[in-house]
C-alpha cells in the first residue's frame, strides 16, 4: 500500500480543493482532449497553466518527478523511436539508423502533450477526495441506462478496501516462499502458479467472509452519497478552462 498512498489525495484548503468534483472531472477530460491537438504556443500556455495548478495544489516538484519516473522513461522511448522513424534532414547517422531533425521535433511535441495530460491528472487526484470522486462519477452515471450506479460505487469502494489486503497477503506469501528457497526454481510458470494460487485462494476466502459480513448487516444499495455542491467559483473556473481549451485548439 506504500506505493498507492504516495499517489493519493493530499489534504489542504486550496482553491482547487474547494472546487466541485464534478466540475473538476469535466475540466480534466476537456483539457486532456484539447491537449492532444496542441501545437507549440498552446503547449507553452498549457504548461504554464499546469505549473500554476500544481503550485496551487501544494505538491512538491521533486515528489511529482519521482512518481512519474517510469512514465518519463516511456516518453524518452517514444521520442527515440519517433526520431529514427521519421523522414527528413539527417542529423546523426550510424550504421543501423539515422536521427532526423523532424523526428526529434515530432517526438518532443508528442511526449510533451502526453506529459501534460498526466500532470493535470495528478493535480486532480491530489486535490479531490476519493469519496467525492466516487460521488461525482455516480452522478454522471445516473442518467445512463443499464448501469446500476450505486452498485458500481459500492464495488469501487470494495476495490479500494481489498487492495491493501492483497498486498499484505502477497508479501506474506512471497516471504514464506523465499524462506523455503523458491529462488532456486528457475521455471517461471512454476513460480507464477506458486505465487498466484495461494494469493488468490486466500484473498477469495477473505472476500467470502466480507460477503457474509455484509449480508449479516443487511447491506442494501439505498445509501446516501456525500453531498456535492457547486458555487460561483466553479462556474468562473469553468469559463477559464473553456477559453483555455478554445485557445489550445485554435492555435
Amino acid at each position, binding site marked *: 500500500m506504500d506505493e498507492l498512498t504516495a499517489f493519493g489525495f493530499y489534504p489542504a484548503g486550496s482553491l482547487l480543493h474547494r472546487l466541485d468534483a464534478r466540475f473538476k472531472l469535466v475540466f480534466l477530460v476537456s483539457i486532456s482532449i484539447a491537449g492532444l491537438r496542441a501545437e507549440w504556443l498552446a503547449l507553452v500556455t498549457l504548461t504554464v497553466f499546469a505549473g500554476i495548478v500544481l503550485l496551487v495544489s501544494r505538491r512538491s516538484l521533486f515528489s511529482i518527478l519521482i512518481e512519474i519516473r517510469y512514465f518519463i522513461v516511456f516518453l524518452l522511448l517514444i521520442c527515440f523511436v519517433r526520431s529514427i522513424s521519421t523522414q527528413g534532414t539527417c542529423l546523426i547517422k550510424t550504421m543501423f539508423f539515422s536521427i532526423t531533425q523532424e523526428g526529434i521535433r515530432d517526438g518532443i511535441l508528442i511526449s510533451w502533450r502526453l506529459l501534460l495530460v498526466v500532470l493535470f491528472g495528478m493535480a486532480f487526484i491530489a486535490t479531490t477526495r476519493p469519496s467525492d470522486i466516487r460521488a461525482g*462519477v455516480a452522478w454522471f452515471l445516473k442518467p445512463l441506462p443499464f448501469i446500476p450506479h450505486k452498485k458500481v460505487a459500492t464495488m469501487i469502494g470494495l476495490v*479500494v478496501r481489498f487492495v491493501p489486503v492483497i498486498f499484505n497477503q502477497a508479501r506474506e506469501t512471497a516471504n514464506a516462499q523465499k524462506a523455503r528457497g523458491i529462488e532456486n526454481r528457475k521455471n517461471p510458470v512454476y513460480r507464477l502458479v506458486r505465487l498466484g494460487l495461494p494469493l488468490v485462494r486466500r484473498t477469495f476466502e477473505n472476500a467470502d467472509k466480507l460477503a457474509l459480513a455484509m449480508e449479516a448487516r443487511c447491506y442494501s444499495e439505498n445509501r446516501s452519497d456525500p453531498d456535492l455542491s457547486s458555487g460561483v467559483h466553479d462556474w468562473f473556473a469553468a469559463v477559464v478552462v473553456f477559453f483555455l481549451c478554445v485557445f489550445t485548439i485554435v492555435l
Partner: protein
Amino acid sequence: MNSASQMHMMVYASLLAALTAAGAYLAIPIGPVPIVLQNLFIMLAGLLLGSRWAMASVGVYLLAGACGLPVFAGGTGGIGKFLGPTGGYLLGFLPAAFFIGMISERTGHRVVFDILAMIGGTLIIYIFGIAWLMVVTGMSLVKTLAVGMFPFLIGDGLKIAAAVPVARALRPVIKPKGREECVINQTK
C-alpha cells in the same frame, strides 16, 4: 439468481478488480523484463466469473482508474490515462474479459478451450492497444508492434500457462456456494 449469490458475485468481481489493480504492482523478477501480473488477473476474471461478471469486474477496475485512483501500471490513474499511449490496452481489457468468459462458459470449462479463449483475449487486447498506440504516437505498424507487442509475448504465454492450473484449482472454491443456494431455493 438470488440476492445472496448476487452479493457473492459482486464481492468476487470487486476482488478480481482489486487483484488486477494490485497486479500492476506485483511483478515476478525473471529475466530482463519482469512479468507483471495485471493481465493474468484479467484472464482469471474471465475464466472464474463468466462473461457478465468478468466485464463488470474489468469495468469497475477501469472506472476506478478513470476516477483517478492509482490502479494502472506504474502507479498512475486518471481519465487522461485512457487518452495516453497505453489507453488502448486498457479499453481492450473489457472485450477481452467478456470474450474469455463467454468461450469458457459455452465450452464447459475444458482446458483446451480455456487456452484458446485466453489466446483470443490476448489478441483482442493487442488489437485495441496497438491501434491506439499507432494513432497517438504516429508510428508505423511495424515499429508499433516492435515497441508495443513483441517484447511482451513470452510473458503472455507464461501467464496463459499459469492461469490454467490456477483457474482449475479455484473453480471449486467459487462453485459450491452457488449450488448450495440453488438447493436451498428448491427446498423452499
